[in-house]
Each structure stands twice: as C-alpha cells, then as structure tokens.
C-alpha cells in the first residue's frame, strides 16, 4: 500500500555535501521512527529520473530534498510547480519536470510537492560532507519533522522561499 506522504532525497553519499539529500531521508526516517507507521515512504536515489514520476502516484504530499550550491543557508523551501523545462538530460531531470511527466502520464495534476534545498559548498568525490553542511542538515531536519506533522505546508500555487 502506498503511503500518503513521500520524502524523496537524492544525491551521492560519496560526493561531499551532495550526500545531504539521502542523509536527510535516512535521518528523518530514523527520527520519525515507528510513530509515522505506514504513513510515510522514505526514498532516496542518486539522481532524479523520469521513472520517479510514478513514485508520486497516490500521494497526498511529497517532499523533494536535495543539496544546493545556490540556495541561502541553511536551507530553502519552495513550492514546486509542474514545468515543461529543458532541465532533463540522459541522466537526470528536475523535480518540476518529474511533476510534469506525472501530469503527462496520469493525465491529472500531481500531488502538492515541496522542494527542500539544503545549502552545501563542497562536492568533491570521495569526501565526506563538511561540518557546515551537517549543521545545515540538522536545522533542516527540525523543519522536516514539522513537515511530517503537516505544520509547514506552503500555500498551494504560491512560490515562496522560507529562509530558516
């Protein structure tokens, strides 16, 4: 049975701060523990791909989590819209593009999706995440727990940046 909430982080655990997405998923899952029961699915992958559109099926809310070089520290929250952008390549697409693929495949609107971008600075292969990035992760996890409780859902259709 599909859980109503999905937390989906992506990145490479072996590539410095790029690990923030999957680390967020792992640690939020551990923090939530059994209290969330079957209400939340925690998924992680190296990159967003077209097939992840199918992970949006039957969800009430979705949280995408990624490390970002460009967002404000410690993290930014953005309400996502389905977009037919040119971000896709052979290997990766954007979360907005994933939502658009869902719309194309399912012929219906995707569930409300939120992007949590956690500020990172170093993405060297073989390096662990930096201390500053891990501090950003800790602060993002506090926000993430509130998201699970339904207390931080941005208003639909409003692009907003919540600087913590």
């Amino acid at each position: 049975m599909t859980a109503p909430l999905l937390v989906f982080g992506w990145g490479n655990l072996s590539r410095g701060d790029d690990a923030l997405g999957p680390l967020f998923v792992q640690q939020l899952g551990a923090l939530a523990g059994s209290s969330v029961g079957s209400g939340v699915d925690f998924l992680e992958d190296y990159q967003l791909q077209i097939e992840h559109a199918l992970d949006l099926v039957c969800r009430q809310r979705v949280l995408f989590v990624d490390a970002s070089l460009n967002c404000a520290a410690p993290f930014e929250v953005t309400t996502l819209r389905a977009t037919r952008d040119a971000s896709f390549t052979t290997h990766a697409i954007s979360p907005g593009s994933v939502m658009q693929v869902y719309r194309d495949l399912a012929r219906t609107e995707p569930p409300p999706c939120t992007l949590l971008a956690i500020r990172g600075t170093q993405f060297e292969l073989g390096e662990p995440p930096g201390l500053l990035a891990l501090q950003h992760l800790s602060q993002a996890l506090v926000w993430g727990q509130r998201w699970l409780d339904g207390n931080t859902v941005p208003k639909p259709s409003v692009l907003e940046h919540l600087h913590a």
Partner: protein
Amino acid sequence: MSFDLETAANPKGLRRVAIDPVSRVEGHGKVTILLDEHNRVQQVRLHIVEFRGFEKFIEGRPYWEVPVMVQRLCGICPVSHQLASCKAMDRVIGAQPITRSAEKIRRLMHYGQVLQSHALHFFYLASPDLLFGFDSEVNLRNIVGVARAHPDIAKKGILLRKFGQELIRVTSGKRIHGTGAVPGGMNKHVSRDDRDMLHRDVNQMIGWAGEAVDIVKQLHAQNPILYDSFGSFRSNMLSLVRADGALDLYDGVLRARNADGQIFLDGADDQSYMELIEEEVRPWTYMKFPHLRSLGRDVGWYRVGPLARVQNCDFIPSRMAETQRKEFIDWGKGAPVHATLAYHWARMIEVLHTAEVIKDLLEDPDILQGNLMTSGERRGAGVGIIEAPRGTLIHDYRVGADDLVTMCNLIVSTTHNNQAMNEAVRSVARQYLDGRVLNEGLLNRVEVAIRAFDPCLSCATHALGQMPLDVVLLGSDGQLIDHMIKSHDGEFIRTPALSAGPRIGAEALS
C-alpha cells in the same frame, strides 16, 4: 589498409564538422566528418574521447574485490561486469560448476539486467527518433516528449525498466553496484516476499514486452525501405550460444556467422577467446578494434549484441520469443538481416525472452533455498564470458598465489562493435550527407545509427598502457603550433598536418 572513408587521402583544406558529444548514448563520444568544397564526404570517424584505465588499476587488487570494482565501469550494466568477473573468478578458485541455486539466482539477476537495460535504451533513448521521426523538433525528441505524446508507451517502458531494476535489487542487494554474486556463487537467496512481489507483476511484463515487439514490427512494416536500408552494411556476427544452439545470455560457447549466414566458427570454448580474437589499436580513438584472427583485420570484424544473437542462435528457448524470432528471420527472406535499425526489433524480442525466462525462474524453488557456494582447487587464471545487453563481454584474469590480480584483460560489448558502428556511420554519411548542405536533422541520422547499437562508451574505454595519443598545440588565435602523435607502440611522430583525432587540449578537455 584503411577502411573506406576512415582516412581522407588529403585532409588539408577539408571542412570539419563535429557531432560532439553524441547524445542519448552512455558515455562520451563524438563523430567527425571531413567535407570537401562540394560537401562530398571524405572522412568519417566515431571517436571515443573518454579515458578510464580499469585494466591497470585492477592489477594488484585482491581477486574478491574485483566483482565489486568492475561494476564501476558502468552505471547501466554493472550486473554484466559483476557476473562476467565472477564467472572468471569461479574458475580461478576452482568453483566449477557453481551450485544450481547460485546459477539460477545469477541468471535471474542477469536477465533482469538485460530487461531493464533494453527497456532503458528503447523507450528512453531510441524511441523518440523512431516515434517522432529523425527530423522532428529537437525539443520533443526525448523521453519527456514521449511521455507527453505517447503516455501509454512511456509508462509501460518506465515500468518495464523498474521491474528489471527491482529484480537486480532483490538478487544483488542494490539496484546498481550490488554485491549478491561472489566468486564461487551467491551470498543470498531470493526471499519469499520478494519473489511473490515480482511474480505478481511478471505476466504483465510479458504482455508489455510483447507489445514492444509489436511497436517495432509496425515501424518496420510502415516504412520498410527506410528501416531496411538505413545504415545497413554486411558483416560477420558473433555471440555465445548454448551447446545445443539455443539463445543463452549467461553462458555458452562462441559461434560466428559470416555475412551470408554461414556458421564458420562454432562450439568454441570461451577460455580460448585469445586464440580467436585479436584487438587492434588505431591512433585516432581510445577504443580498440577487435577482429577474428582467422580472417584478419580487413574482413574479420563483426557485430555483437541483439541483432547478432537473435540470428546466431538456432532457436530461442521460450515460446513467445521464439515465435517472434521466426517472424524476424522471415523478414530477411532467407538472408541475414543486416539493417542497423533492426537492432531495435531484435532487442525487443530479447526483452520478451528475458521476461519469459524471469517468470520461469521466479517459479523455481531453487532460488529460495539450496546451497549457494562451491569451492575447489585453485587454478590461478580464468576467463568469464557473458552476453551483456550490448553484446559479448569478456573478462580475463590471472591471480597470484597471494590472491592479488596480476593481469586483467577486458573486451566489452561496445568495443566488439567498434568497426561496425564506424561502418554504420559511414553508410549513413554516404547515403544522406554526401554532397548536401548539412542540417541538424541530417546530423541526427548519424546519431540514430550509433544509438541503434546502444553503445556504452564508458565501458569501452578501460584500457591503459598501449594508448595512442594525438596531441595538438594551438595558439591563442587558433593557429596550429605543433602536432605530435604517439602510436600504440610508443613511437612519436611530429606532423604539421591537420588531424581530427581526439586531442589533449582545450577541445578534448572541455
């Protein structure tokens, strides 16, 4: 001797057109075309411009690390590298035959890998060209465009691939870079829950795979002139077959047919591949050119992969795929099908076959229980050959008494197809580009021909040690200052002549 259109007689003054990078393939490559003042094609080359070095840095590592290390050759077919290396290491440690359960779980993993890789290639990479046309809007020619225009096809393609990925995860521990197969066997069974989860969907997958074959057949039937002639050329074909001549993707003996379909090599032991195959280095690319020693470089090159496998075998050992194979063979009207676009048709027949085999394996109790490991007397060397999604994959190792690898030789599927891909590109250049003003659609035809082989350029550039280099020094104004070539045997040649080969300089490093 140089092949037709491989090297221009006088490159000076020719206009150079580059397709760089070639898109919707795995890894990085480029095509260069030299044209004279009348737009007549004088030279066409597919260059592989990335450089890896796996064969060298595997040396000195413990043998049990190798099945994990070699998976890093590729994010698309890591299972093939894992299993080919495990088959080689089985021999090294004398673990032969491996147990019934271990072989069946390995087969399940491998057929799942082929299914997901073929689905990825056809639906994600190739279908945009085939469904929208070679000249269609560039922004539409991608999988997102397919999802928009043909959601039903895209959804089935995505779910087929996902099913294959789940098979890999269940058998190897992870969707990519798993650890399930080890020298001597497997380290885990399939759990009953996982088996049941996969078995629930397998009939649906067989149905969708059958529909995928129908899509390709329909494309051929709608435009037979294009599909039969595009990038077509005659060649030998090489693959493994089972001892009784059946299609087998996991194990077998080597068989080769000539361009007329006559078998001229059969039943060859995989351990003797070095007596059969020779690799040639050419100075303008990082990918080697294998050929059959008995025929020599000029006529001994061959195709591998689905087009070769489906025609090399005597039959496919699953009911629905065998019916489709017969129909495919009939398309050739008694002669082998050499059409480059027929790779897609053969590939989808293999998807159907893998789905049928997967169903049989999921219903086999041996994947849930039974001994997983075998041991025996050490031999110190071993060759593992497997039919990877893109064709015959060879791993060859020697291991010292201290367990450390002393020699590694890999011939990957895309490398076998090197000459064939170049021939396909040249065929397209002659047919569509020669004497015409080039545009995006015409150049896309070159990429369509390459894509049909589903090349994995990352896999194919692992060699180190005999690597030729073509170094061009350009001034800030773009003028040629110096040009030096290092041949595969280490000889340096300084020449002022213009070269279109891979360069150590701004172009190659950008």
